[in-house]
């Protein structure tokens, strides 16, 4: 058994790893773990990753979680083109600088619209309007920093070429976009950056990776989303409670 990747394309970090692997021709066995159904909290999956999170990489006996760690591991193991995770000291530092800020200001924040509009209602929970507003403000603030501090007048977030930073960022931004947030409206620099990243990755790969999240509202409306398991239900309630 070669490399296995446990993922769900509903999840931003899962998409980042998926796109990276596909773009670089990294041989992976894909194992879909349905987040909405709650398969990540099943006994079987918890045996593989006791934290019950996606994505998870399995390389023989070696099991790795955290998308940034997985991306770095794959880039080194498969010696992907240098621009993804540059060997230059300062260039690489810029990637880590972005990833650190991303963990604080993007991660957690950009996923909330999915909880508000789809996952909460799926289990009969409504997120209070003031929290939705607060999240909208946080998203707008983060986008401002993204544009001003990280992008500036550079073509990509951490330098002159596409890096892991751009991939992580794009996939987070796609989440609220899929929920109807027009993030790129009135943000021409960011829109141009998105165009550059998607052009680099290729339209086909982007479509493949994004099709599930982009159809999520439709699936919710048609009531074709799975019912979360009892184990997942508790975890979902906890997650919703943590929305600031």
């Amino acid at each position, binding site marked *: 058994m070669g490399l296995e990747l446990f993922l769900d394309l509903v999840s931003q970090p899962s998409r980042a790893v998926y796109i990276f692997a596909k773009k670089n021709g990294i041989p992976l066995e894909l194992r879909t773990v349905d987040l909405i159904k709650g398969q990540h909290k099943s006994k079987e999956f918890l045996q593989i990753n006791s*934290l019950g999170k996606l994505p998870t990489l399995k390389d023989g006996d*070696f099991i790795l979680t955290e998308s940034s760690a997985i991306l770095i*591991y794959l880039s080194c193991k498969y010696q992907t083109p240098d621009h993804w995770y540059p060997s230059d000291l300062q260039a690489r*530092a810029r990637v*880590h600088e972005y990833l650190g800020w991303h963990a*604080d200001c993007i991660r957690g924040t950009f996923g909330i619209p999915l909880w508000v509009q789809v996952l909460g209602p799926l289990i009969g929970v409504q997120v209070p309007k003031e929290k939705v507003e607060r999240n909208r403000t946080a998203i707008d603030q983060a986008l401002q920093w993204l544009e001003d501090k990280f992008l500036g007048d550079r073509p990509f977030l951490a330098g002159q070429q596409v890096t892991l930073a751009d991939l992580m960022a794009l996939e987070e931004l796609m989440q609220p976009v899929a929920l109807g947030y027009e993030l790129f409206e009135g943000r021409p620099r960011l829109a141009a950056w998105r165009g550059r990243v998607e052009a680099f990755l290729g339209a086909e790969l982007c479509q493949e990776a994004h099709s599930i999240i982009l159809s999520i509202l439709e699936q919710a409306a048609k009531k074709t989303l799975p019912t979360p398991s009892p184990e997942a239900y508790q975890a979902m309630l906890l997650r919703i409670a943590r929305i600031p």
Partner: protein
Amino acid sequence: MGHSGRGRSVPTMGLELYLDLLSQPCRAVYIFAKKNDIPFELRIVDLIKGQHLSDAFAQVNPLKKVPALKDGDFTLTESVAILLYLTRKYKVPDYWYPQDLQARARVDEYLAWQHTTLRRSCLRALWHKVMFPVFLGEPVSPQTLAATLAELDVTLQLLEDKFLQNKAFLTGPHISLADLVAITELMHPVGAGCQVFQGRPKLATWRQRVEAAVGEDLFQEAHEVILKAKDFPPADPTIKQKLMPWVLAMIR
């Protein structure tokens, strides 16, 4: 912040680290640099005086956060990025961030995980238990404090069960950046008076190992400020007004 006191500009001294040892990530950077004999100019940015919110500091880091590193014209923020930069530039012993692919992935994994988990709980524990009531004079409801401490408890359990397990250090038999980042985080609730290691013998012995590996003197020195957090005099109204928006955004 440091200045020459002379009219003309002086050649850069090399590495400058903008820190306040009140901050967990600053402690990790400080200890790492000192432990590895990395020469640097210390630039104190006093958080409780609001120096990080000044225009002068915004010139160094427009995001108004510490730690920040300046290496000639190169300015870098984010503690993990800074630690990795120092690791690579100064060719520190391998165990801090091993060359071995899988060993290194374990460190990367911990450093990624801790951002939204341990980091967040430790920060909130300090502010809800001590800094809000004592320093800012803002009462915190018993429910809020209880929820924060419960969250800390859950994260500590994960630290033990998922990362430490039965190993000497978080990612293997040797100390690494993961342990340094973790221990400096845990000293935040310790500084707030939380008995983090009580009833957690595995974590307690891990702490001893980390302190010994870092060096007792250096460890004490780096933690002098946080261990006095309970005794900070209350902020005057001007300072309080200045700091409140920043504090509220930081611990949301």
